[in-house]
């Protein structure tokens, strides 16, 4: 099949296929280039190599079960995807979330945003040949992911944010761990600034390349750092504050020209703001220490149950490690029927067991009222919106995702036109295209 560019190309130009397997086309995308020497005369971007039918799959899953699928959208910042989806459902069902859980969500969102920006810039700088900078960024991301791993139990596919709250409470060492991760990140940002900000080669490579005017950015539907690099002040966190963002002090950095340098700079500054947000949240977060009364080892618990003492209260923790919880941490909503009942109740009481079955049975579970809802959060690379149509059953009638990269990548052809082949790659990197989110 001849593509558009094959028909349009001049006879004397060199047609070249960048991707789908090219070292810089991370996340499989194909760009057909029509080259005049090394200059890009024309190009055609082909997306869809990572299409997995996300939206259709979601129509066949219950509201609770499709949560892990959202992890796989923007796999560099899965927690923000979770937050976006979960809050859409909460908006539809009008669920109130405990404050502590809201703070945890903000902390996790911002940590994910930092890791997202770190990854995007790491890829962009490495594609310009600065391999050391790449490894510095990855070092910082490693620290952040360690914190995320220790909290959520997973590094990428976290599924940590649940409808009505979050899955588990923060672990006891969270404050020190976060402080360490933030120190490492700050050091890395300082080092990278020293290496790149005033580096003549870096400025030459990025200044004036792939300029996106504010009008063009708005027309294409840019959001996030790419839009702000063009000088348009729009951030979902400020424009439509959700969670506790209206109580936090942060600024929205803006670029001037909308070129690759600005997209780099805006991300660098945003990471600093995100660090500030995390710091404020760690300070302001309301405490929730579960009262621990004694401890029963699992073996003892089993022994006690075999002895058939009806008055013996046996309580097991969710992880079955034997630590007993008298009071549940305030991280999940009180509304019934939208949360998984705590395992302590499921294993020890008939009511908990029934709740558990009711929650997981097909046709029961989470059943939002009929209606449609759109809710968006500020994702790693822009406005991440979910549109859900509910028909009253436990499965969404329709779920649509507004992925930020899709709109940005659609402008790629115009952005790289007339530039050199070496500019295609950092420009592509600066859009922070994530295959999982783009192709869904």
């Amino acid at each position, binding site marked *: 099949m001849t593509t558009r560019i094959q028909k349009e190309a001049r006879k004397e130009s*060199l047609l*070249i296929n960048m991707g789908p397997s*090219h*070292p*810089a086309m991370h996340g499989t995308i194909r760009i057909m280039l029509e080259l005049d020497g*090394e200059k890009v005369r024309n190009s055609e971007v082909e997306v869809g190599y990572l299409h997995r039918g996300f939206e259709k799959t979601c129509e066949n899953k219950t509201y609770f079960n499709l949560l892990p699928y959202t992890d796989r959208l923007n796999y560099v910042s899965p927690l923000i995807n979770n937050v976006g989806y979960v809050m859409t459902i909460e908006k539809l069902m009008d669920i109130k979330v405990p404050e502590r859980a809201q703070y945890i969500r903000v902390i996790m969102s911002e940590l994910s945003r930092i890791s997202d920006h770190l990854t995007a810039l790491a890829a962009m*700088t*490495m*594609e*310009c*040949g*600065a*391999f*050391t*900078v790449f*490894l*510095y960024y990855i*070092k910082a991301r490693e620290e952040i992911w360690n914190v995320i791993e220790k909290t959520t139990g997973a590094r990428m596919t976290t599924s940590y944010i649940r409808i009505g709250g979050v899955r588990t409470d923060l672990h006891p060492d969270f404050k020190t761990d976060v402080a360490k991760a933030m120190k490492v990140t700050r050091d890395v940002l300082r080092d990278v600034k020293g*290496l*790149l900000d005033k*580096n003549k*080669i*870096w400025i*030459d*490579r990025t200044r004036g390349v792939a300029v996106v005017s504010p009008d063009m950015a708005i027309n294409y539907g840019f959001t996030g750092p790419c839009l702000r690099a063009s000088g348009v002040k729009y951030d979902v966190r400020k424009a439509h504050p959700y969670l506790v963002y209206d109580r936090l002090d942060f600024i929205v950095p803006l670029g001037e020209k909308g070129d690759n340098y600005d997209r780099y700079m805006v991300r660098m500054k945003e990471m600093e703001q995100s660090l500030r947000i995390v710091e404020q949240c760690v300070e302001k977060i309301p405490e929730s220490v579960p009262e621990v009364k004694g401890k029963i080892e699992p073996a003892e618990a089993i022994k006690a149950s075999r002895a058939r003492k009806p008055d013996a209260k046996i309580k097991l923790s969710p992880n079955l490690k034997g630590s007993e919880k008298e009071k549940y941490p305030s991280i999940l909503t009180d509304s019934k029927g939208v949360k998984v009942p705590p395992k302590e109740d499921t294993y020890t009481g008939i009511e908990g067991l029934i709740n558990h079955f009711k929650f997981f049975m097909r046709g029961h579970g989470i059943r939002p009222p009929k209606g449609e809802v759109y809710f968006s959060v500020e994702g790693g690379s822009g406005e991440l919106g979910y549109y859900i149509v509910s028909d009253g059953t436990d499965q969404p009638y329709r779920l649509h995702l507004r992925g930020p990269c899709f709109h940005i990548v659609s402008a790629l052809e115009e952005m790289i036109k007339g530039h*050199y*082949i*070496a*500019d*295609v*790659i950092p420009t592509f990197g600066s859009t922070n295209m994530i295959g999982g989110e783009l192709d869904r």
Partner: protein
Amino acid sequence: MIEALIKFLCAIVWFLLLSLYLTWAERKESAVMQDRVGANRANFFGFRILGLFQPLADAIKMMTKEDFTPAFSKRFLHNLAPFLSFFFVAVTISTIPFGSHLMIGGKEFRLQVIDLNVGILFVLALLALSIYGVILSGWVSNNRWTLLGGLRGSAQLISYEVALGLSLIGIIMVFPSLKFSEIVGFQSELLFGWLPKWGVFLQPLGLIIFLMAAMAESERVPFDLPEGESEIVGFFTEYGGLKYGLYMFTDFMKVLIIACLLTTLFFGGYHVPWLYADGFHFPWGGDWLLPHGIVVLFQVIMFNLKVFFFCWLQILIRWTYPRFRYDQLMDFGWKFLIPLSLFNIAATAVLMSL
């Protein structure tokens, strides 16, 4: 004849062995810069010694890999290309002086394989010829990406070769000879009675131009356009195994030969400051007389130390900067380095005629 053969064997073994271990140095230095550990797993009966066996393991791996030639390429030329690059760079070592003379049994041996009367031109010519390997590999692989790489290589060479040659004219004006031995000989003298008369003090601008142009010649970041692994994947995309290894190896040999040239032309070659044929004569008074053998040893060690320093410097630069763009590189060569080197020549001429 036998003498020349032995000397050449010594020189080439030194050259190849050091290039081999330069891969280790590069890995370790970049690891230190990037908070990593670097290669340290290769061992010999359980002995790791900081991964010093890694280059040997790499070499064995390269040699035992499949020698693959794409079906759509021309087999003979495809095989020839890496050897062209390798050969032209490997030969250049024969003109580099490692020390002055070694007296064995009343006979004088120069510590230099061959002292050509056009030494500088010879080295420049061979280094330029090595680009044919790049162009050939880019073209013969019959792949559009490698073709771009080959073209970039030739364009880059043309932009830089001029500046490289012009930057050395200053040196030839100051030390009026093309022979390496004589250029090094001139640098044994003293300026103002205490400062060694090294090229760096007479031609500071020339040194900077030469360093930049030579790094461009070695095709490493920030000038690694023919390779450009994230952009065009490189002119050697269609190579594997030993032939790919030869290209990599040639890269390191170029680093080493550039370090040798920098040492020889700008940093007094094998000269130790204030060391003469009979020992040290310090400018502040005081002598330390040494036997002939020790003096030669000092010279060879000093030469090696200087070479190591410049290898270290080049690796440091390589892991610090991002890559230039094709047009910026040409601009840099034609619009900045060449005018600057012409100015250097003019300034040198004016100063010398004073």
